[in-house]
């Protein structure tokens, strides 16, 4: 099967380049199919048309078929330019994950100055006055705009009571 990314340079590997993708997708399909078998049964009087598990099963079957075609296709399209995976991705995820995890108990604005200070540092910024200004001003600006002006319900945690 030809595809639109076929002009990409040929891979020196013997295995089809998207074989790993294909296997992962097929595994997900198998898991998804098993889950459809666990759906609650439909009462007899409601049984007409497609049963609730049938449509997802059809879609899973279609995805599985495409995944098989992908395994045997040539280079099926190019990924976006792939810079090497950097530690920065993991640290960024760790930072945003920690921030989200603490938002409910401590409030999203309590730790926002720390987040705003750490984010640019993790991304290589070293202009400290700029970082300090960003970490100091952005939380105030967002709080004034979303909480005070727009009344957006946000997790305020320790700052509960300041939102008016």
């Amino acid at each position, binding site marked *: *099967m*030809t*595809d*639109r990314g*076929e002009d990409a340079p040929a891979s020196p590997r013997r295995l089809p380049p998207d074989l790993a*993708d294909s296997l992962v*997708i097929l595994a997900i399909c198998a898991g*998804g199919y098993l889950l*459809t078998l666990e*759906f*609650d049964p*439909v009462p007899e009087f*409601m049984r*007409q*048309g*497609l*049963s*609730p*598990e049938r*449509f*997802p099963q059809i*879609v899973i079957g*279609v*995805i599985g078929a*495409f*995944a098989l*075609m*992908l395994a045997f296709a040539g280079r*099926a*399209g*190019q*990924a*976006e330019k792939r*810079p090497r995976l*950097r530690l*920065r*991705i993991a640290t*960024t*995820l760790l930072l*945003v*994950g920690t921030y*989200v995890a603490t*938002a*409910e108990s401590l409030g*999203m604005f309590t730790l*926002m100055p720390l*987040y705003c200070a750490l*984010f*640019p540092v993790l*991304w*290589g*910024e070293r202009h400290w006055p*700029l970082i300090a200004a960003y970490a100091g001003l*952005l939380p105030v600006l*967002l709080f004034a705009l979303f909480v005070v002006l*727009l009344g*957006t*319900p*946000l*997790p305020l945690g320790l700052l509960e009571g300041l939102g008016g």
Partner: protein
Amino acid sequence: MDAALTGIAFVLSAEMLLLIFLATIAGVLVGALPGLGSIMMIVLLLPYIIVMEPTAGIVLTAVIYCAATFGGSITSILINTPGTPAAAATTFEGYPMAQRGEAGRALGMAAFSSSVGGIFSVLVLIVAAPLLARVAYHFGPPEYFALALFGLSMLASLGNTSTLKNYIGGAFGILLSTVGVDFATGVERFTFGSPALAEGIHFIPLMIGLFAGSELLMQAAASDAVPRLVSKVAVRLPSLADLRKVRGTIARSSLLGTFVGILPAEGGTVAALMAYNEAKRWSKTPEAFGKGAIEGIAAPESANNAATGGAMVPTLALGIPGSATTAVILGAMIMLGVRPGPALFQQQPDFLYAIFGGMLLANLVFLFVGLYGAKLFAHISLVPKQFLWGTVFLLAFIGTYAINNSLFDVWMMVAFSVVGFVMRRRGYSAAPVVMGLILGELVEISLTQSMLMFQQDVSGFFTRPIALLFFALALLGVAYPYIKSALQRRR
């Protein structure tokens, strides 16, 4: 007539004029920021749009769509970095012009041709969408099922990724649309016992994660090179002679862009590249292309903006997105309780005229913004990404949380950010997933209803000529990339 007057009066109210003006400026600014764009801005604004008055909310999204498409040209010309994918072709001639000190001329031409292309396509939208809707008014479940399949078949041509991977993404989106309580039987599907999943997967965490979150992670992986503006930004705008020179190019490109935009899933990027190639083919001086030919700016810019109006035709008339951005706009409409399709033209024509009016005004506003403010706006592209993307995440957090006051939604957004990042690195685009999620419900409901109509006999579809026509078009849509690649090989 009354509906048209009501719609136009709504758009011309002081509040709406201010909203359109501000949205146009914001759209141009966001379009000028590489990595952001109309999808990202609409997605980040969705939580606020869905609590707005529906007409104002949708006019806002349409205005941002038009303005951001133009905004992408600013950075294409000044820093050789397209703000949006649709502006990629503008770099070919825009940046060489800017380098030789003609940035003002290039920016002015981009603004003028974008505005003309955009206005032309809105006029086509005003005429074509109601006609298409009139035909679609007679559609039943089998026709809608076939139409939805046709829309999905056009995923083959969406973006620059692989056809097969687009189909896998689209089918994955459809599968995600089945999460939650089954509409017919009340049976829970893929909820893992979580009440938060019983209502299904919300558009907003998914879209913010797949687009904004994944881009954040892509940016984390990218290099730290800081773009620089070209040193000489000449202030001279295009002359009348320039405008005379490109009038044929703009006319052809506007037509081409509108037509390409109408095709579901084709968008401004394809339109702009096709128009650029056509401009070169029709030019008396094709050798000037690549060195700063002004027709090479007029063509992609008029085409990509014409594609915005074109893409709104199937979106409004049939409820089938014409592009990735209109898929997001369609999501916003559904969340606002507006179901696009033929009934909309019968029941809420004033709503549609307000959208048409808003888009027309946006095209006029960014003409002036582009002519006089583009060089100023270009400086926004110099905002260091260390500060930009940290802020984008906070806005994504606030927007996602605000829908249901739920941190579960925020975790969903973070999870879809990782999913989107992995998908993009493996060559899968996020747009098909969103299209699948939006069309999934229509596919399942119309299939279920059709099967009931036909008493579980699939051959019933063969008794419906319009459904058969859409099935044939769907097959053509699936085959199109292969036919195109075969034709290219033969050349």
